[in-house]
């Protein structure tokens, strides 16, 4: 009996470790390639450790990608802040101030989360051009705020639905109105909701590419577009794209590793059914 359990446990660990190794292979290859000198990179020896550590690729990649990183930081921080605050207010109304038709309206909101964005791209492009917002960061921020509203409203609505109505009722009896309840009761309770939502939005906006390439000019390109240009073309020396990939991935990876619990809650919130 004991022997059988140990055997199956051993098998379980063996499978898990093998799978984990397979999942980590791309990361391993990326790190070792980014630390090699261009001369040392060759296809047949791509899995071998670098002879000497060379951090020059990171310096070069940072030099090339710096404007993109700055753009992405400005874009991500502004758009995350705005869409999270709006989402919180919307979620508050949808969860605690239901009115006739509010559930239908909420479903219509959610629809905006599931459309392939290609279907709004052409009017978005021409509207931003007509508003003189095409090409720069403000237009991109506007797009991210608007199309971020469905998911942020969804996460906050589900979060606020767990706050008992009795808290609301006692506050109403004390004479608190719509905004007083929000600022005195709901807002102080929603710090975890803000963390989950803003991490989710940060991840999404930092990683977004389609609007970045269609709606911005060269000077306003976000990091994903910068990386695609750095890695594009046929004759690339692979140390630079790999170092760039690490830089582009690092902010979100750090969030994921340090605040994984909140990141996963955002991930799960994307599936509408609870």
């Amino acid at each position, binding site marked *: 009996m004991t022997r059988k359990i140990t055997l199956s446990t051993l098998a*379980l660990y063996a499978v898990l470790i093998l*799978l*984990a190794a397979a*999942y*980590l*292979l*791309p990361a391993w*290859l990326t790190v070792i*390639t980014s630390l090699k000198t261009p001369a040392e990179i060759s*296809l*047949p020896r*791509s*899995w071998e450790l670098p002879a000497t550590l060379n951090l020059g690729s990171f310096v070069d990649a940072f030099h090339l990608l710096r404007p993109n990183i700055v753009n992405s930081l400005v874009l991500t921080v502004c758009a995350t802040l705005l869409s999270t605050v709006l989402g919180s*207010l*919307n979620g*508050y*109304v949808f969860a605690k*101030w239901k009115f006739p038709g509010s559930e239908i*309206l909420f*479903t*219509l*909101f*959610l*629809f905006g989360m*599931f*459309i*392939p*964005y*290609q*279907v*709004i791209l*052409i*009017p978005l492009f021409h509207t931003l051009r007509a508003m003189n917002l095409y090409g720069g960061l403000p237009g991109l921020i506007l797009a991210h705020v*608007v*199309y971020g*509203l469905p998911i942020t409203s969804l996460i906050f609505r589900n979060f606020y639905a767990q706050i008992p109505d009795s808290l609301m009722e006692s506050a*109403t009896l004390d004479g608190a*109105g719509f*905004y007083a309840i929000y600022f005195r009761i709901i807002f102080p309770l929603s710090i975890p909701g803000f963390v989950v939502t803003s991490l989710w939005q940060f991840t999404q906006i930092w*990683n977004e*590419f*389609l609007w970045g390439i269609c709606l911005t000019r060269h000077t306003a390109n976000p990091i*994903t577009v910068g990386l*695609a240009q750095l*890695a594009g073309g046929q004759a690339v020396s*692979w140390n630079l794209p790999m170092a*760039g*990939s690490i830089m*582009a*991935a690092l902010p979100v*990876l750090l*969030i*994921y*590793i340090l605040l994984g619990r909140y*990141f*996963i809650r955002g*991930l799960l919130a994307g*599936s*509408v*059914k609870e």
Partner: protein
Amino acid sequence: MRNHDRIKAFFTLLPSIVLLAVFVYGFIGNTFWISLTDWGGVAALAEEPVRNYAGFANYAELFAGFLGGSFRQDLVNAVFYSVSLLAGAIGIGLVLAILLDNKPCGEALFRTVFLYPMALSFIVTGTIWRWMLAPQGGVNILPTYAGGQPLRFRWLSSTDTVLQFDWQNLLEIVCFLLAAILIVWGFWLLREQPRKAAIRLLLPGVVLGGGTWLWGDLLPRALFMEEMHGLNLATLGIILATVWQYSGYTMALYLAGFTGISQDLRDAAMLDGAGATAYYRHIALPMVRPITISAVIILSHISLKMFDLIFAMTGPDNGATGHPALNMYLTTFRANEFARGAAIAIVLFLIAATFIIPYLISSYRQRRGGR
């Protein structure tokens, strides 16, 4: 609650309502209208571009025209891509979740390792995997470290195509596929509901399949010329990278579902003599069926709009790994054919809508029923 508070609540929501009404619903309508015009060509970006109503000419060109061949191959690619991503990510994610549901030591560490690809952008994933799949290195030389021969497969530049079919026979193929689905589904239900399975599924399946086999020649041709399409093997690399990125996501979904099943229920099942296999097959998996539905919806949505990953892995101009979403970008922003691009976007939107709308309606009903 007082009335003016209700008005305040509504006015708080109003800016978002207006924005989404314009940016989602208005823009979809606008794209549809553009797809019915002939807007495009050299003067497309002029101040007052010439736009004439052209009816459904763009759609006819895409599905039955001489130049739409690449779009049709993109559509076939997208179908194979969606099906493989669903099978791969859900299958592997489920296996990972069941393994971790045994609560091994270091569960949190394993979970982190399987899920970290989700934190990367498609551009990062694509860049890394382009290097992983380089023909004489990366994945292809891994077997040599275990004493084997290196692989020779040209992952992203292969020009081989399997499962070829003639687009002319599209209607017949669709009928056969429908018949096959009905028959398989019928056998699936045969033990639980034999009557329903036989009458509603097996019989129509056999009739449809047999009818198509006998009289399929009478069906109209879908195209005026022969045109072969199939599964381009170059897309396998893209599928592999996407499965790597998204299997951890389905794992997290299933793991949350399994954790939600109470320990009491699990203990009771084990007491009744259910082994691990029986527990997952008869108790855990049926209980997480809503999660499977969510995963199918979200993964299909992702595979339908897939653009960044292909852009980063094979570049925008690689015909063999094309995708309608990429084609839409090239048609619209490289060739300035706005009307044609809008038609592709509407096709993508309609495919997405066929499964998103039922999903949203059922979740709406569930919310109404739950409260």
